[in-house]
């Protein structure tokens, strides 16, 4: 199905300048606290939605940006589109820095970078006809003002996205169209300015199963037709396989693995990529099946885990992966939830003191015993838990566990953040592949 049957050449970037070059990009959202905080203008915290991303988008390729919901894919796309301000780092488009560009200057670039959002229904102004909506970009940029010409150009682009005969759609309102037809109109609106880069943010995920393949096929055809480059954002590794030349796997604001699609599917390196691939239900990838991802959920991007952001869920995590206080709390609470109803849960809870001290992320823990209990009892309890499941990766992270005065002293190995480094055809951000940490 991919337009070129030939495998895209991996990492052949030296001679040709990439269309987009992103370096150490950071986009944070500030979350405002309560009224008192707002009164003094204090920020209650930041969500690191994009947290140090570097990648290139090459001319003519389809780069897939894949990750679970909340991993920052949309934010990355919106930063590229200039819809949110980057906090740090750089984005170069055709060799020109575009972060921090004032809207006035950005406007001319918008003819070259266009977007298709997830929800076709919400992406169209309900008060505009299809002709008005699709033709508006031409008016905005002063390309075409003559009504007849405008209409003719809209009709032309509508037919090219498969809304034919265009006359049947021109004077319709979005609410008169089906989801798939609306998404076609949205694509037409994005293409009428002849952009070079199209950011497609989950363009089919809100469509009917049966329409999805058609829209994707249309996008493949249009890529040739309009000589487009795509940034294709999706949470669905299965459709990415059919569509993308290269794939970047994103997790909690970072790229954890990036490389040619073949390499990623044939030999996934990062434990997160491996988990995502395992979660694709075979043999029918279009069927919706609950995903069998590793334990737990995507952590809160407002206070990401120390070290490797994936370590709390990683089955292969080891010493340097960033073990910390909150992992102990998760371990205990997960255990008690699993054993709920058994009498020993209450006994165990009576031994351990207030778990709230564990909420502050730190690689050393000073955990008090419960009132009237000795820290030695807590140590014994933790050792018993370790003995029950010694394979649990958490214990690899523990460097020291002993009673010390009135507390339990629990020290973890120092967290190290993995960096994206080339491994074979791909680049991976995981300590398993960096010799310094694993050696």
């Amino acid at each position, binding site marked *: 199905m991919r337009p070129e049957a030939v495998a895209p050449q991996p990492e052949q970037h030296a001679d040709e300048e990439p269309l987009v070059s992103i370096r150490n990009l950071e986009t944070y959202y500030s979350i405002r606290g309560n009224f008192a905080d707002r009164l003094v203008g204090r920020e209650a915290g930041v969500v690191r939605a994009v947290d140090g991303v570097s990648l290139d988008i090459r001319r003519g390729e389809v780069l897939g940006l894949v990750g679970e919901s909340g991993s920052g894919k949309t934010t990355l796309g*919106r930063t590229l*589109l200039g*819809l949110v301000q980057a906090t740090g780092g750089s984005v170069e488009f055709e060799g020109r820095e575009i972060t921090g560009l004032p809207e006035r200057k950005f*406007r*001319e670039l*918008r*003819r070259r970078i*266009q*977007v298709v*959002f*997830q*929800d076709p229904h*919400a*992406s*169209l*102004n*309900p*008060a*505009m*006809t299809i*002709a*008005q909506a699709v033709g*508006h*970009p031409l008016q*905005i*940029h002063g390309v075409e003002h*003559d*009504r*007849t010409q405008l*209409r003719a150009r809209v009709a032309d682009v509508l037919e090219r996205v498969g809304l034919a005969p265009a006359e049947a759609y*021109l*004077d319709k*309102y979005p609410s008169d169209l*089906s*989801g*798939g*037809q609306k998404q076609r109109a*949205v694509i037409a*609106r994005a293409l009428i*300015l002849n952009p070079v880069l199209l950011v497609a943010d989950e363009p089919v995920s809100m469509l*009917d199963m*049966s*329409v999805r393949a058609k829209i994707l096929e249309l996008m493949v055809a249009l890529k040739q037709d309009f000589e487009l480059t795509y940034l294709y954002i999706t949470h669905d590794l299965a459709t990415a396989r059919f569509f993308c030349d290269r794939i970047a796997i994103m997790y909690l604001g970072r790229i954890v693995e990036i490389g040619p699609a073949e390499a990623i599917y044939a030999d996934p390196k990062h434990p997160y990529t491996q988990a995502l691939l395992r979660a694709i239900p075979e043999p029918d990838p279009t069927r919706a099946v609950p995903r069998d991802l590793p334990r737990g959920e995507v952590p809160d991007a407002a206070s990401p885990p120390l070290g490797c952001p994936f370590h709390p869920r990683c089955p292969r995590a080891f010493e340097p992966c960033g073990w910390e206080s909150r992992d102990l709390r998760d371990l205990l609470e997960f255990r008690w939830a699993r054993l709920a109803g058994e009498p020993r849960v209450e006994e165990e809870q009576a031994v351990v003191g207030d778990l709230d001290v564990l909420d502050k992320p730190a690689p050393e823990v000073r955990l008090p015993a419960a009132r009237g209990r000795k820290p030695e009892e807590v140590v014994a309890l933790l050792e018993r838990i370790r003995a029950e499941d010694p394979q649990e990766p958490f214990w690899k992270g523990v460097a020291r566990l002993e009673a010390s005065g009135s507390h339990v002293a629990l020290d973890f190995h120092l967290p190290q953040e993995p960096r994206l480094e080339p491994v074979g055809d791909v680049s991976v951000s995981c300590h398993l592949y960096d010799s310094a940490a694993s050696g």
Partner: protein
Amino acid sequence: MASTSAPAPITPHGRAKLIALGRATKPIREASGMARFMFWTGVGITLFFVALAIFAPLLSRYNFTQYASGGHRFPQLGHPSSAHWMGTTVQSSDVMSRVVYGAQTELEVVAIALAMSLSVGVPLGLISGYFGGILDRALVLLMDALFAFPYLLIAIVIAFVLATSSIGGGILTAAIAITAAYVPLYFRVVRNHVISVREEPYVDAARALGARPRTVIRKYVFFNVVQNVPPIATLNAADAILLLASLGFLGYGIQPSQGAEWGYDVSRAVSDAASGIWWTGLFPGLAIVLLVTGLTLLGEGLNETLNPVLRQRRFGRFEFDEREPREEALLDQ
């Protein structure tokens, strides 16, 4: 080129306008049950008063300031009779003329006040809501402070200040007083709606297309926000009638020489009622009640037919369900 392209664009454009009009009035045409009844009753009553106002000189035998005709002074506090269908007042003026001309005053004041408060409140709300920031915070603070005041109080203060100025106690003063009382309301309604519309993907899409803020507000935000305004404006009109009548009743409204005003007439009739003279108060009072009822029915009818949330509740399901079968039908082709 110009000669050939001139007539052609009219057709598609005019057609689009017609379609837009058809779409905008569709919920009203399709309204049913209670909403339909309320809407059309409201329309009937309101049109009746509009007709009174327009044809006042034809419908009423005397002017509202007239107390004599053909050299004969009208009777004081005369019973309703063939010469004075609704009787006369203590100043010998004809109650019916005052009621009929009163429709003119009320509707004029309310129309001017609505136009002014809309043309101040709506743009302020649009700008404040869309751009946010310091301007927004300052405006919200100011408007909330105004909103917290009883609006009758605001209107009285404004009316009082203006009446003592060169403008005097006429229609414009009353309209400005009412405007000041309603601007915060429109501001709030529009601003809050803009805040939610601003987050809609189609607004983001417009920005991504390169539309300037002015274009985004005019073409993408405005149309989706103003849909809320007609029901509110109509309900407000009903409210404004009461406000104007209250001002008149308290003596801060239209001065009797400037126009006939029902609230003022009712206030003058209060003392009559004690001595069994019912006609001086009853007819202007009835007029107030009837017009307010008409406008309220119209507003509620509009609200119920235009407001999608209410509409969905009435059908007991969401629009989403309606779309599904159609989508399947299209796929079958």
